[in-house]
């Protein structure tokens, strides 16, 4: 069933016309790492540079006015996309920066501030975190003396919440969790878990890298304080990310990066800072990238996130069903579609993921192999690495077919001899 015209979508992505390793059609199944970009995004960036480029918020001439307007209108688009207030959207360079921003800002908070963290406090993460939502908290814990604890993952790739209440205890200042695992595809029951955080007054940071690009995420419906995501995984340019935070928190938090355009007044000795979002956007911003992200959001809205999600569910379901018929293959992650996104990780007995990925690449199929920046999760499942296919709106059932027969061919290549 077609939720939208997939071939028309494919035509918007020039890279899909590339030939791989000889004359194989590109089957791009690595959108979980980074997505491809439609022409409209590239056009928006180019239009910015060739018609309006100037330093936003730093000049009164016409180009500076236009650049400011375009940059701020991108912010409005992001805000509308996630259902937030405009001033709650901070542009960063990536989700990684967004999460570091929160961790460093908390670390900068003086004693007495509600963001201050010290020895005796607790930071809670999970065993399925991407390194980007794990190491910044390890480092914050190291710097402050706080304790880092975590929710573990069950064999079926779900968060184990049986002891959540004792893990997220009254000492807990921060709970940092991924919305959807980039390895397992698991979607976490955010509001259920945030109840534990609310009960003890902890801040809740959600890594929304793998959710915002794929289905509607509305911060009014999520009971969290911060969400972080990257533009490049949602059809946008590289070099732009977003931090959303509740206004009253952002306005009170200490700054992270400091420099131009985030100050109120400056003397040689000290400075006072503008309210959010400017407080967190020091320097000439990544204007063209923000504008490109705005165009990416326009593109996603034109298709409709609900349809994109259903399309991906359809592909993922087919993929899971067909892959599980390969006897040597094991899915790492939930095997059904309940609370699950378009990411499928697996191992193949006797064939190392690197070798499998290499063979698939030879057939034109781009998948990700390795630890997926989630090393602790690999150890949890006692694997060195997995092979991961991830879907997006430009994939179709022919891509699933290509993957499945590619895996079979590779298996025969390595195990058949």
């Amino acid at each position, binding site marked *: 069933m077609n939720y939208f015209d997939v071939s028309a979508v494919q035509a918007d992505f020039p890279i899909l016309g590339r030939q791989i*390793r*000889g004359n194989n059609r590109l089957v791009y199944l690595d959108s979980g790492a980074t997505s491809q970009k439609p022409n409209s995004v590239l056009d928006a960036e180019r239009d910015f540079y060739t018609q309006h480029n100037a330093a936003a918020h730093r000049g009164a001439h016409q180009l500076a006015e236009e650049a400011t307007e375009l940059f701020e209108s991108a912010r409005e688009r992001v805000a509308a996309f996630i259902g937030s207030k405009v001033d709650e959207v901070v542009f960063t360079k990536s989700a990684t920066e967004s999460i570091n921003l929160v961790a460093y800002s908390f670390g900068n908070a003086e004693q007495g501030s509600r963001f201050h963290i010290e020895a005796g406090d607790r930071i809670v993460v999970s065993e399925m975190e991407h390194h980007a939502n794990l190491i910044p908290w390890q480092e914050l814990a190291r710097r402050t003396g706080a304790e880092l604890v975590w929710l573990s993952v069950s064999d079926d790739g779900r968060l184990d919440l049986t002891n959540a209440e004792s893990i997220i205890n009254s000492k807990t200042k921060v709970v940092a969790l991924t919305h959807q695992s980039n390895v397992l595809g698991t979607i976490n029951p955010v509001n259920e878990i945030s109840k534990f955080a609310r009960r003890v007054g902890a801040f809740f940071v959600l890594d929304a890298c793998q959710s915002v690009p794929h289905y509607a995420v509305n911060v009014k419906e999520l009971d969290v304080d911060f969400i972080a995501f990257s533009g490049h995984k949602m059809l946008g340019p590289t070099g732009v990310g977003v931090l959303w935070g509740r206004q009253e928190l952002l306005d009170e938090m200490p700054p992270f990066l400091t420099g131009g355009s985030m100050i109120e007044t400056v003397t040689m000795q000290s400075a006072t800072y503008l309210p959010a979002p400017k407080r967190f956007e020091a320097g000439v911003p990544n204007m063209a990238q923000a504008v490109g992200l705005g165009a990416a959001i326009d593109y996603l809205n034109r298709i409709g996130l609900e349809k994109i999600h259903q399309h991906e569910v359809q592909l993922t379901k087919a993929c899971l069903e067909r892959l599980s018929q390969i006897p040597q293959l094991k899915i790492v992650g939930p095997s059904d579609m309940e609370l699950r996104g378009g990411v499928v990780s697996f191992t193949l007995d006797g064939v*190392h*993921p*690197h*070798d499998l990925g*290499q*063979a698939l690449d*030879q057939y034109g199929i781009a998948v990700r*192999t*390795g*630890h997926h920046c989630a*090393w602790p999760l*690999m150890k949890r499942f006692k694997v*060195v*690495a997995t092979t991961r296919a991830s879907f997006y709106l430009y994939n179709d059932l022919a891509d699933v077919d290509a993957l499945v027969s590619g895996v079979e061919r590779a298996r025969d*290549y*390595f195990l058949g*001899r």
Partner: protein
Amino acid sequence: MELDSLYQEVILEHYKRPQNKGLLPNQTVQVHHVNTSCGDEITLNLKLTNGVISEISWDGVGCSISQASTSVVSELLKGKSSDAALSVIETFQAMLQSKGSDRGDESILEDGVAFAGVAKFPARVKCALLGWMATKDAISQSLALTGNNAKKEQK
């Protein structure tokens, strides 16, 4: 078919029947190397006797390239002096970093020339080098150690 040019018969042979796999005791040094981009790990024991590599044994998990390559290096360098071994490693490394232009000298590298094709796949070069770099590290450490011992004895 290009896949065959990467996965030469020799490589798949070593992968299926790795040589010197399983750690032997009484090593001069033990090293542990990790390929940080994929998580593959290797532990390698090396024994240096009067400047000659008398034993190499190893264990670990990894792809066919890294497993086969470690198997090859462990066979090739056993019995060689540390200097000769380091020079062989250098030859292998140069081949791998040549982007495919250096097909390797079979009189020096023996089975090692089977990895010439890997040089065309930059993301796999590290796999092919994992065991070799571990061996190089182990030789250097052994030399430092025995050098130190020698110095200590001199005192």
